[in-house]
């Protein structure tokens, strides 16, 4: 089971150093990926937590939205851990895919590449692979179908319970 822990107390800088920081924001602890800044953690069951951390970065590089916190990318890819737990072939697809990206990236691995362009160049190389297709294809729904991200994009979602928009700005445009 993948669990997203919300509202974890932020780790102290000292603790963070003790656990070993991976990349800018995410910390691996035991079987979990933790974001000390944002106070959430994600526990993996089938995939290595390092793999999950890289997968989160890959997800952001595929659909980069600077205003969307990592947490939602983590939620968007956690399904791969669940599938991997049930399906060894899927586990191998993801682990190998990430390992391949790491080796292409050289020392420091994928997450060690500082610029998005560098990482995107690697993703472009593997764009046609089943690994990339599986990750990208899943994300279209798993990222954008999270109701919690909609407000970030200014999409208001369900409107029936509020009586539609007839009295809530269906024709409120002013700048034309």
């Amino acid at each position, binding site marked *: 089971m993948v669990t997203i822990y919300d509202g974890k107390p932020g780790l102290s800088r000292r603790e963070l150093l003790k656990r070993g920081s991976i990349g800018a924001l995410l910390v691996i602890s035991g079987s979990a990926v933790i974001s000390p800044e944002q106070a959430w953690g994600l526990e993996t069951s089938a995939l290595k937590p390092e793999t999950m951390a890289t997968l989160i970065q890959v997800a952001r590089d*595929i*659909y*980069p*939205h600077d*205003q969307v916190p990592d947490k939602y990318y983590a939620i968007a890819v956690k399904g791969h851990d669940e599938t991997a737990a049930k399906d060894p072939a899927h586990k191998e697809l993801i682990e190998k895919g990430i390992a391949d990206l790491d080796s292409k990236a050289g020392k420091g691995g994928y997450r060690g590449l500082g610029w998005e362009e560098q990482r*995107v160049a690697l993703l472009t190389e593997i764009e046609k692979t089943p690994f990339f297709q599986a990750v*990208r294809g899943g994300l*279209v*729904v798993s*990222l*954008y*179908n999270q109701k919690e991200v*909609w407000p970030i*994009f*200014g*999409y*208001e*979602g*369900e*409107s*029936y*319970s509020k*009586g*539609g*928009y*007839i009295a*809530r*700005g*269906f*024709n*409120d*445009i002013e*700048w*034309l």
Partner: protein
Amino acid sequence: MAAQFDLKNDGVVVIIGSGAGGGTLGNELAQKGIDVVILEAGARHEYEDFINDEWESFAQLAWKDKRTTSGDWRVAKDFPNLPAWIVKSVGGSTTHWAGASLRFQEHEFKTLSTYGKQAGANLLDWPISLAEMEPYYAKAEAKMGVTGTNDWPRLPGNNNFKVLKAGADKLGYKECHTGNMAINSVERDDRNSCQQTGFCFQGCKWGAKWSTLYTEIPKGEATGHLEVRPNAMVIKINHDAKGKVTGVVYADKDGKLQEQKARIVAVAGNSIESPRLLLNSQSSKFPHGLANSSGQVGKNYMRHTTGSVYAVFDKPVHMYRGTTMAGIIRDEARHDPSRGFVGGYEFETLSLGLPFMAAFLNPGGWGRSFTTALDHYDNMAGLWIVGEDMPREENRITLHADEKDEHGMPIADVHFDDHPNDTAMRNHAYKQASALYDAVGATRTFPTPPYPSTHNLGTNRMSEKAEHGVVNKHGQTHDIKNLFVSDGSQFTTGAAENPTLTIVSLAIRQADYIAAQMSARSI
């Protein structure tokens, strides 16, 4: 009270499908006292059960059974198993539809004579004219409550419409308004008026938009002459030694095969399933499928020349608020070959929610070019292009050689290649629409490829002569007197207009014909 008919009752008219064509025909016949059984593959969800959520609603209503695709259309690459976005549910695609209800133009019933022979296209004149259709269009508009007809006011324009209108004015387009919509602009027919909810594609939870689900069907049921049997997937039409159809075989809700006897069978499963069923009903007498002596069953598949253009502005639009498609520009709908193509197209406002926008804006796309478009979702406006596409014999529905569905029925393959005329028209429309949004200050525009087909047409087409098509001017098959086609697959050509008003008008007309033939005892 809804009727219930015995499986052995061979006096009933059996209609396959409860959407625009089937649901309307069922009610019209029931109103005349004719006993009707509608067999519908999908479940029955009433409008309170609809869901204001794109993917959840899709899961509830859409036809998701596997189909395959081939051809050069982009849908085959991006959505290889979802050629069409249509519905499997009581009410058919009239649950999902947006309500745009336009009459065809006179010349669109005579495309071969008007456009002349087009290489690579299988154009043909309809065996009916606009003049013959007009009384039925009027009946359909009255039934459906189409705005801008019968003194019903047009809907108020939402934000997306206001952007469209401002652009239309800048470009000098003359005919731009909030459309002819089968959506109540005032309370009528015991139904609400539109509350500008913006989820027209997900089923109207207010019942303001016309759907056979809560208009034709309950009205027909109230006569005591109509039974709608949901979860009944028809897999074969049976016939006797003389070649008359005698009933249909369907899988019931438990997957058990049943045979419903019939005096008349009318096929209205939409343009992929209707030919699939006729082809699958082949027998030693009809080795190429029912009503297929012309070889045209499944051919001439049309889907309209479509595409969308979305544009981002430096200020908010909130296009998703309010009626999804209440906005139209009709100036490009004319036939004017000087533009480099025959036939014409309409511009209609369109909005998708964020989840569908992500899936359809540029399928397969990723990276910043893609995501920065979505970053400004609230500053987006959008329109849909719907234009006449060329019928081609090669564009067709066939039975898959080896893949079968859960009932053992071969699944459908949908082959489609754009005709050069389609491509020229789409490119023209992309250019005009981008110019329109640029004129109101768009900072970026997105020519968006066609979605899986919402308009599916032409695969059992009407023709004067039996060798050119499948049905006559009443939708009666040329080959079998008591077998009818009652959906958009009858269309000889597609016209520039959204098809449903014409499907409904043809169904009303067909009901008159069937009733007359029944009382004359000729069927």
